[in-house]
């Protein structure tokens, strides 16, 4: 799954949703795959307002990518900053997690990722 997915996912356990520790999930032992994808600046500008920037900075550094600026760029700033467009494109769209775990810092659960597919199914005591 694309790294962008991590910005949309939190712990599936209902009791965790109110805790700020449950988001973002933390990749562990993550194997990354890179695919070259044609750059589409409009796509990134469309997605920008939906990103949780603080969470994205965490994910980016945990996956070993260069640090992102503290503040999210505005649409105009992003449009004018070709390097930032390329960096975000590479991180969010070209990079996929193929194997590993996604860990909730609140309950400690590790959601396994196998062949790019994460498993968020819960046992009965957690639903």
């Amino acid at each position, binding site marked *: 799954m694309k790294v962008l997915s991590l910005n949309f996912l939190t712990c*599936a356990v209902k009791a965790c949703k109110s805790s700020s520790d449950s988001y973002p999930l933390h990749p562990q032992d993550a194997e990354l795959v890179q695919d070259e994808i044609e750059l589409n600046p409009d796509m990134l500008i469309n997605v920008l307002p939906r990103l949780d920037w603080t969470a994205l900075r965490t994910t980016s550094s945990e996956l070993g990518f260069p640090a992102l600026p503290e503040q999210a760029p505005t649409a105009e700033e992003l449009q004018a900053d070709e390097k930032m467009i390329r960096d975000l494109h590479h991180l969010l769209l070209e990079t996929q997690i193929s194997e590993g775990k996604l860990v909730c810092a609140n309950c400690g659960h590790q959601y396994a990722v196998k062949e790019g*597919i994460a498993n968020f199914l819960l046992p009965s005591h957690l639903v």
Partner: protein
Amino acid sequence: MDFVIKFASEHESFRLPEIEALAVLEGVNLKVKEYSSESPFCVVQLPSVEDAKKLLRRSVMAHSIHELWGTGATLEALHEAIKSQTPHLWPQYKETSFKFVVDSYQGAHSNEERLALINSFSYLPFDGPIRMSKPDNTFTVFELWPFNSVPLKIEHPDSIRLGRFVATSARDIIHKYDLKKRKYISTTSMDAELSLVTANIAHAAPGKLFYDPFVGTGSFPIACAHFGAIGWGSDIDGRSMRGEGNKKKNLPSNFAQYGLKPQLGGFFSADLTNTPIRRRRIWDGVVCDPPYGVREGLKVLGLKNPENATWLIELGVNEWQSPDYVPPKKPYSFLTMLDDILAFASDTLVDNGRLSFWMPTANDEEQEIPVPAHPCLEVVVVCVQVFNKWSRRLITYRRLPDSQVSKSDLEAHEKQRAEAAAANTGTTADDLNPFRRGYFRKFEAES
């Protein structure tokens, strides 16, 4: 300018909704002037030939679009119309190559008749060469005949039109995505045509993010990806996405088969009622075919009788991190699931984002399941595919901006949902699913 759209003669109730959705998506000012579910020919008004091309370029329900030169109840009336309305157009076609063809719906001509019909247009001052293959311009005589004209030996069509060909649609892609040629499918994979129409009506397009919470083998994200969107999906059954045994056939390999890998967002196992997706305005579109629960009752995560299954609970506590652990499931109400889908979509769609989902219902009005409603979602259109005793509907909503949503309606809706959830005491698959109940009674009235 007026144009004739030639539609496919199937899935009639999807034809105008698709064209209207595409007009909104492409920013084309469309006015439908004549349409009938009984005829494949539809007359629309559009600002320009360019707009006509834009309108059709993604359509799968239309075949082609033609500049309308005239309409008549008889051939004579058609010629009158052409002679009075189009002489200003004639000079443009004086030197170009051309051909005439006849498209008779529900009628037939002998070769001589067809030739005579075409020759009756010889007053048009076209001096260019006639070319059967790749002419500069193709003129089509569209005839609409009454039903059963051939066996009833009816002699004249009800209406005749002449149109100059402008563009074909994208209908060919139905063959590209044909399930028969797709490497990984299941019994509930949605057929290519209906998946593509769904993606069109839901406005899948480049730069947009689409999600299917009941993704199965991925028919919808694939169709959305074809139109340039990035597709995400999840399913309570991990095997449906991963495939069994053979690692080469699975949902991601379907994306690869069509060269759509760049558009693969991500897939994961999850139950919609326990989703890991954040309640944030993320998606441009949510499209799905929820489980009807006919063959297997509809299920969600959890235990039906937790008091009798302490060992199962304990197993979960101890084993759920292990790769082979399969969590227990319990029956769930179909109508509640529909409400859950609407609530999820209203929480996660961006303003004006679309929810399109398929829903079965009985044809008998008494047993019809009403279109589910949510204060944040406005119904855009309902399309129906009719089978013998039941139908399925494709229901499409638009996420209203919050400024257009009544707070008191929203509060009342949430209160009602909470009460319904508390009162929902049914536990068998039939109690919980009026459609399933009807299906097994063959939609006879309940006694």
